[in-house]
């Protein structure tokens, strides 16, 4: 299923990574932010929404990253380069991520920054939308978000262009041994 997901997600310009443990994923995140130049500077901020991943790793490592904040305002998110959040499910047949995004922070970090990094427990992988809809509960989740690749448009002369209002890049990080909700 993972391979199918990867093919489909990459088909819509998402970047897909997979790690065995939360520590490895943490290492990736830190390197990634360094590489992209996350810093305490407008347009270069990193923002991260609260998520189970944070309790599986040494939070201090992330807190040590300059420019990355957990305390969110819409303005900070709007001026951020990288937004990080954890999502709940993935749908293999379309390469889609699904998230109970009722908490506003999850949405701010995934809509406003230029790059969205989505963490997901590999156990959250499902075959398709019917399987996810069977588990997602609209009674408790007032905002269910599905994300397939970065923001795109073809409104000018039908030319596909990435990154209109939402992120220009979607970086997906699968973690096999994350524990947590799934």
């Amino acid at each position, binding site marked *: 299923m993972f391979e199918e997901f990867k093919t*489909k997600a990459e088909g*819509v310009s998402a970047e897909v990574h997979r790690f065995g443990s939360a520590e490895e994923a943490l290492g990736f995140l830190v390197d990634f932010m360094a590489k992209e130049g996350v810093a305490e500077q407008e347009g270069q901020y990193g923002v991260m929404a609260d998520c189970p991943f944070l309790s599986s790793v040494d939070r201090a490592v992330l807190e040590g990253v300059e420019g990355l904040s957990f305390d*969110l*305002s*819409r*303005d900070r998110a*709007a001026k951020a380069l990288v937004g990080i959040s954890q999502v709940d499910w993935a*749908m293999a*047949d*379309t*390469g*889609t991520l699904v998230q109970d995004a*009722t*908490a*506003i922070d999850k*949405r*701010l970090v995934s*809509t*406003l920054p230029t790059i969205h990094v989505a963490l997901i427990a590999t156990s959250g992988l499902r075959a*398709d*939308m*019917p399987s996810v*809809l*069977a588990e997602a509960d*609209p*009674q408790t*989740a*007032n*905002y*269910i*978000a*599905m*994300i*397939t*690749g*970065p*923001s*795109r*448009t*073809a*409104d*000018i*002369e*039908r*030319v596909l*262009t990435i*990154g*209109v*209002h*939402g*992120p220009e890049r979607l970086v997906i990080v699968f973690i096999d041994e994350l524990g947590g909700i799934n």
Partner: protein
Amino acid sequence: MQKEFKQSIDRALHNANLTGALGKFSEAYKVNRAKAYEGIDFEALRTTIADLKGDAASHIDELCDLFQKNAEAKGTKVFRANDPEKVREYILKVARENGVKSIVKSKSMATEEIHLNPYLEKAGIEVNETDLGEWIIQLAGQTPSHMVMPAIHMTKEEVSDIFSKEVDERLSSDIPRLVKVARNEMRPKFLRADMGISGGNIAVAETGSVALVTNEGNARMVTTLPKIHIAVVGVEKLVEKFSSIAPILKALPRSATAQLLTSYVTIVSGPTPTDDGGMKELHVILMDNHRSDMAADPLFKEALQCIRCASCLNVCPIFRLVGGHVFGKVYTGGIGTILTAWHDELKSSEDIQGLCIQCGACKDVCPGKIDIPGLIMEIRRRLVKDKGMSMVQKSIFTVVNNRRVFHGMLRAASVAGKPFTKGTKFIRHLPMFLADLTDGRSLPAIAAKPFRDIFPTIEQPKGLQEKAVFYAGCLIDFAYPEMGEALVKILNKGGVEVLFPEGQTCCGAPARYNGAYETAAGNAVDNIDALLAEEADYVVSACPTCTVALDHEFIATFESLGRKKYLPKARELAAKTMDFSTLVKKLVDEGRLTLKEGEQLGKITYHDSCHLKRTLKADQPPRELLTKAGYEVTEMFECDICCGMGGSYTVKLPEISAPILQRKLKNIKDTEAPVVAMDCPGCVMQIRGGMDQDGAGVDVRHTVELIAKQIVGSLE
């Protein structure tokens, strides 16, 4: 037809950007759509969607109640309104109560339908469309030309001009750069907006949820950043179950933009926290605006199965020539014609319904399984019923309804037409009601001797095992009797005796396609009586339009008119009816008819007649017959796109019919095949006439003529 309407068509046809963009898009769309649906059983999927939406349409009130109950339980404010005025007032009231100064909107047809933006702007509120296409249109002061791609008619140069004015800086027409400009311009608008307005692609009654589908991410911001969110949802978007989201979203992106799924799907099921620690105010407006009236109409209820994917526009040979603006300000294309007739009034669709050439291409791809051309025909019928026909039409159909007079006139036409034919098979002008059909096409001469006079002179072998009643139809009877002769010869060889009841007359299609159902019913009765009078195994026709009349439309006409008496006989006739190629293929398969072996007849290309392919689903038998006969079938580009004939369409809208024909001729010529075959005498008339004027020298033939030469025992 209104003069302004004709002018708008003219403008569209001369807008090279528009026709170029739409033409290119429609070609790419076909390929991409097929790819997106790979491995998916489309028929099963659309049956699921049609069933669940059809079921919802039968229970609109209950579903509205259920939605309201469940949504309110979650803290959503639900407002139900029939009237667009009420919807506008409600939104303004909410805005006023909350001191709203600026609004961001994500794309919503429902708000277009009620002309919300100008109303709010007049009240002094800033309204910003945030979908890129919608924003371009808004800045340009235009209306959308396509339901999914509102600005498809504009070039990047036009967009850069508009944006340049907006940002007060000369911009290049580099598309990624223009998109960046939009992103930067929109951001502050999103961040300062006090209210977000969206539509809704699906509304789920059992959970009070609204699902939104976008690619740009603007709906996520519209529903996240402002403190108030109002979703305006047409009640046809209601479904009962949460699980119904999956099949609809399996089809919608694939059909709309050939994507497996759009970048974003947002399912809002109640108020959510805002970033200042408060809670969002969520309003859902369930808008009826005549949708319940549609649901109460046994025929039009089906139109509520629409999921607004716009694929009916993308495959429509007319839409791709004229674009959306010709159709009016809101809904466009085939389904738009139907929606305009209801949301506005029947009269508003008077001109635009005439744009449909009844090719059926849209019906084939509609994920809501809506018989779009059928419903447009019904609009036509009701218009005629309400308003009556023009005097000219009336006199024509009075003639058509009286076989003796009608056939008498056709015979007279053969004499009158003679001086113009100059010994060729073409005349430039046909007398009487086919007059004016000239642009880019020569017309056949009325035959000196109609098939009905030739038939008694044909000697058929004795003791043949089966019998077929031949229904010739006007074109074969009076213009192409040689096709009828060829058919008799072939069937005889296959052991079938051909009967030709004299009482047969026009199949009623011309009347029906003009909304004159009473005339069509009269034709149907005459034909049923004539064709069933003789004992036979089959009723065969070599004209797909006639075959469809016999097989489907007699029944449909009686049903529309509520005439039950003739239905059993109409069904009996339908059960016996077969198109020429299917019957001959059957005879060949059964070993009763043998085609000459080992012939090498060279390249041929095949044009699919709309009715044969889409209503009768018989696109393969003629190809198989031609291949068996020794032709090498080379498919042309867009082999199944209409040739622009469509009966009287060529008279009413020659400016549209002509470019469609030209495109067809080009596609035929591009194959470099010296012969093009087809199964419809109407298409032969259109394409042969076009080729004659074009001078390309491609031989245009009915399959019956080609097969007749290749049966064992034939001397030619």
